[in-house]
């Protein structure tokens, strides 16, 4: 069975989704979702432990060898992303039970979990495949289910933000299709490895740079790179809490992965950075993203929105690492992929707990929660410290590598600006912490600590934030290995 692990990773959730939709019992469909995500985690770990040493797993779907059929291709890079997605899913799904019961009508919950699993399926499918058109198909599975999940928020603005996301996401996907089409017309192939062999011959045509540009714009839309991030704050703010925690921690990460895969594997770093000089665009955009959206985050009154803007800034950190186009920079970016998933997952889950008890996530609604919901707010503090980049949290590890990569590239001012971004994080996180701990609570609203079923997943993520901040050996090893693969460096 372990030979089939790459495909089983995707197919098991894919089979679970229709079953969950048909089952009328809320609990059973939730259990199916849990099972699917835990399976994914198991499979992801299996894949990662096989490719950690540098092995590449290739799986020919339908028995047709690449490039004639669709190939699943797993190396340390996507095994890493798959692990991130599966790990977050397997924590977020147990968490969802209570939260969803409170926020989604019970007669929709089965379908909700079906869409949830489909979203997971899509994200895993994108990450595991070695075929560019297959990317598009699974991208749409994850996107469509994400639009539907987001639209289920209680505020009516959930609908408009889902619509906005749908339009921008579809434009992005169509751009990607155009880019894939141009590449296909120039080479006649869709397999990533095959493309990477055939593209050099046609690199000096005009079509390939344009294909590159369209793919870059398409992925930037999907990963919410400034200034194409406009869909993200609304979507994260108004989606149901569990959905926000899940999607915020995974969807943009997978989009970053796709961008990496196309830049480094399909086109090759030499083309992307020496010919196209995409770093000249990405680096400034990343810096502007970090600074401007952190500034916007500082002024938010709704904490989920605040965290959403913070996400755009954090995506800036990842892209910053990518734009350095060095092993160190990519390591930083890939590390932050994982680390940011942990911290944002924890923060949004904490907000889900607040939503569950208080019914609002505005800052003024947090007054006195430090005492009333001590575990939830303590989790928020740890997650927040991680965002800030305090040592002994994962955020610090990311920052350490990112700054070091910037300094190694001689960009001391970039390193300094990264630090400024951290300081802005101090402000927006501490605004919340201050209100939670130093403002008196309104009397007698009977707010109590969130249920254990939500607290345990939340604290699993918090513990991971600290554990991987203290013992980053595994994460740095895999991220470095993945970065070396992308850069084509053999160690």
């Amino acid at each position, binding site marked *: 069975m372990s030979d089939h692990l790459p495909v089983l990773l995707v197919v098991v959730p894919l089979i679970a989704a229709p079953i969950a939709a048909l089952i009328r019992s809320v609990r059973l469909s939730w259990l199916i979702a849990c099972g699917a995500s835990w399976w994914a985690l198991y499979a992801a770990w299996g894949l990662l432990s096989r490719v950690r040493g540098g092995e590449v797993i290739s799986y020919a779907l339908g028995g047709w060898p690449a490039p004639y059929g669709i190939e699943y291709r797993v190396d340390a890079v996507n095994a890493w992303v798959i692990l991130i997605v599966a790990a977050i899913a397997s924590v977020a799904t147990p968490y969802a039970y209570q939260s969803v019961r409170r926020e989604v009508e019970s007669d929709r919950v089965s379908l909700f979990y079906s869409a949830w699993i489909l979203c997971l399926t899509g994200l895993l499918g994108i990450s595991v495949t070695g075929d560019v058109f297959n990317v598009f198909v699974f991208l749409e599975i994850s996107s469509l289910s994400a639009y539907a999940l987001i639209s289920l928020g209680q505020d009516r603005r959930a609908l408009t933000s889902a619509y906005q996301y749908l339009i921008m996401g579809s434009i992005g996907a169509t751009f990607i299709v155009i880019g894939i089409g141009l590449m296909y017309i120039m080479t006649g192939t869709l397999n990533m490895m095959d493309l990477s062999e055939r593209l050099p011959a046609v690199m000096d045509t005009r079509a390939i740079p344009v294909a590159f540009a369209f793919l870059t714009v398409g992925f930037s839309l999907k990963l919410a790179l400034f200034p194409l991030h406009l869909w993200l704050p609304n979507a994260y703010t108004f989606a149901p809490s569990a959905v926000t925690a899940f999607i915020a921690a995974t969807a943009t990460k997978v989009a970053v992965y796709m961008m990496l895969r196309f830049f480094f594997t399909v086109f090759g770093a030499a083309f992307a950075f020496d010919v196209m000089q995409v770093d000249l665009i990405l680096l400034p955009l990343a810096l502007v993203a970090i600074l401007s959206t952190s500034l916007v985050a500082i002024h938010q009154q709704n904490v989920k929105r605040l965290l959403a803007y913070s996400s755009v800034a954090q995506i800036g950190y990842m892209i910053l690492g990518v734009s350095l186009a060095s092993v160190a920079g990519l390591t930083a970016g890939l590390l932050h992929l994982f680390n940011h998933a942990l911290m944002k997952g924890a923060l949004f889950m904490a907000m889900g707990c607040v939503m569950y008890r208080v019914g609002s996530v505005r800052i003024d609604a947090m007054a006195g929660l430090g005492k009333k919901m001590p575990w939830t707010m303590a989790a928020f503090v740890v997650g927040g410290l991680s965002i*800030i*980049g305090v040592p002994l949290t994962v955020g610090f*590890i990311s920052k350490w590598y990112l700054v070091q990569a910037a*300094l190694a590239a001689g960009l001391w001012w970039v390193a*300094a600006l990264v*630090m400024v971004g951290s*300081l802005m994080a101090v402000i927006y996180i501490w605004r919340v912490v201050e209100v939670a701990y130093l403002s008196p609570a309104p009397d007698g609203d009977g707010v109590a600590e969130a249920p254990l079923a939500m607290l345990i997943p939340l604290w699993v993520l918090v513990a991971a934030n600290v554990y991987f901040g203290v*013992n*980053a050996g595994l994460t740095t090893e895999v991220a470095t290995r993945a970065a070396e693969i992308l850069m084509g460096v053999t160690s």
Partner: protein
Amino acid sequence: MSPVTVILAAVLLPVLAAGLVLFLGRWPNLREAVPIATGTALFAMIYSLMDVVRSGEVVRYSLIEVVPGVDLALHIEPLGVLFALVASFLWPVTTLYAVGYMRGHHEENQTRFFTFFAISIGAAMGVAFSANLFTLFAFYEVLTLCTFPLVTHHQTEEARNAGRIYLGILLTTSIAFQLLAIIWAWQVAGTVDFVRGGFLEGTASPLVLNVLLVLFVFGVGKAAVMPFHRWLPAAMVAPTPVSALLHAVAVVKAGVFTVLKVAVYVFGLDLMGELAVTPWLAWTAAATILIGSLVAFTKDNLKARLAYSTISQLSYIVLGAMLANAYGIIGGGMHIAMHAFGKITLFFAAGAIMVAAHEKKISRMHGLGRTMPFTFGAFFIGSLSIIGVPPAGGSWSKWYLGMGTMEAGQVGLLAVLMVSSLLGLVYLLEVPIRAFFSPPPPDSRRPDDVHEAPLPVLIAIGITATATVALFVNPGPFHELMTLLVTP
């Protein structure tokens, strides 16, 4: 007990004590006995490290490798032992004091207070024994964060604003400057492990090294070198035991300790002496000394005056480091201890006055010396130590610092030290003189039943005042440790 066990215990025992405090929250006497007992045991254990230091044995313990090449590690060296000795001695004393103070003041949330207090000590111990810049930075930040709840203890608007300034300055400087400097050092040198004589020499261009030194000195916000000193007066809204132990001893000394450690173990005195920016930093410290003293003059609030005095005195130590010679380091190191004992005595006294007479303003302390002779007597002794005159310990450190300026050929700096001492003479001694020799103001609405503070407070004041004098008679381990530090 092996040295490694001791340094591990030094970090962990206070944290365990914190857990126990939290657990025993409902039984106040038991709860407060925990830190006193732990602290005493801790002091005894750390004192046993003197032998290790004397033997010159290298003791390093790596807890965990965080990222490849960087580990969370502790080690034993003279400067750290000195800092740990001071902090561990004063912790139980301050706890004793806090028992009297907090109860006398009817403070709320005492369990939370004692818990974070203990954690802060653990963090300070971590700073003292850290074996590399990363570990140092980690504990430094933990110390910042754990003291935040103490600063904002009263949860008032004032406390909240103070907390913002406190955290704002300390985190800003540490993240924007210190962390950047640490990562930069790692980038150029490939290591962050403390090595006697430094590890930066020859790793980067002089320009980069100069920039690094500036980043380190200003990045240690806890050293309160101007213009990053505003957090210290702000932190005075905290209950007095916090001001006494943390903002006169543990937190601020963690700052200047870092500066000294960076000078000795990251740059090395030789390299420091060569860098163009070092004298400039010395003069920045000198300016802080003078301005701090002058501002202290204008403060009528006793704790504020002591805070500015602290700012001024901390820069003595920074100055010592920037002199880049053995005398400067010895003087700076000893001043960590001497200033600690002197200043804590002063803060204890200030708190005692607040508890017993509810007075904060110096201008309203006329005649109080007659009802509180013991407190004001101790205040007098503490003042002498800060000013640097016998028979108080402070005279030793000032002597060495003066020698250091001569050695460095900086007569101007010597003059600054002199002037500052004169200023101290005036602004500190004003308090006991008013208390003892002025009659009570006629409009005084002071209650008639003012008498000395509660007994635990007095015992604590007695201990620190006695120690201040004793350190003049015999500067003992502190002098020895610093000599060991500078003699290869």
